[in-house]
């Protein structure tokens, strides 16, 4: 194919000396299989939860220090940003846990058929969202004493 350089190629060749080959577009045009989406979201939620451990540690340490420190924590947790973070963490935990079960099933040898894998991925997305919303709604009914 003797076409002129694609825009990717022109971009790549603008760096004098470094021979980068032109790239085909990928993320912008390929369709996302649901199994692929579940996989990368699993990694993303894992990373989110990692940062979330800091939040958990803050909660425990604040409780150990005393009412003032704990007040700071609850004040922050009640702000819009705080609630957003909490929702994100609950959602991440729900998704990562459910998708983790999928992984454990694979470890045991179950669920490799492509239709099963797609169905379980869809189930995980749906259930995780439901659980996140459910837990958050319950949390909002701040009568607190549920158990």
């Amino acid at each position, binding site marked *: 194919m003797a076409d002129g350089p694609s825009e990717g190629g022109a971009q790549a060749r603008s760096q004098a000396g470094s021979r980068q080959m032109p790239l085909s577009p990928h993320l912008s045009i390929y369709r996302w299989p649901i199994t692929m989406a579940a996989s990368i979201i699993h990694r993303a939620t894992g*990373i989110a939860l990692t940062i979330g451990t800091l939040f958990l*540690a803050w909660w425990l*340490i604040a409780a150990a220090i005393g009412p003032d420190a704990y007040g700071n924590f609850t004040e922050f947790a009640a702000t819009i940003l705080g609630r957003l973070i909490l929702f994100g963490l609950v959602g991440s935990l729900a998704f990562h846990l459910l998708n*983790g079960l999928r992984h454990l099933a694979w470890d045991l040898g179950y669920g490799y058929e492509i239709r099963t894998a797609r169905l379980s991925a869809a189930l995980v997305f749906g259930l995780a969202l439901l659980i996140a919303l459910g837990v958050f709604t319950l949390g909002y009914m701040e009568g607190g004493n549920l158990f």
Partner: protein
Amino acid sequence: MSAVALVPLSIWFLFSALSLVGGNLAEVLVFLSKPINAILMLLFLFAALHHMTLGIQVVIEDYVHGERLKLLSLMFNRFFALGVGCAAGFALLKIAL
């Protein structure tokens, strides 16, 4: 297999955290002072941090390529887990004991 342990432990954690929502420090302290809750929370912390270390290690190995940066990142990963674990664990023991 921290993953397997985390299945029941995370569910327990979610329910416990839910029951404590509302901002009452006294309730939280009472809850965490009960031995069973303190032990479960410690187990949850250990399992979660160990699981996290393994997972982040894979992420680092996938995305970080410079040899020195990779080594430093892998070390930092372990130190992070140990740091958070000891800080949170200490706080927990201070409350419960």
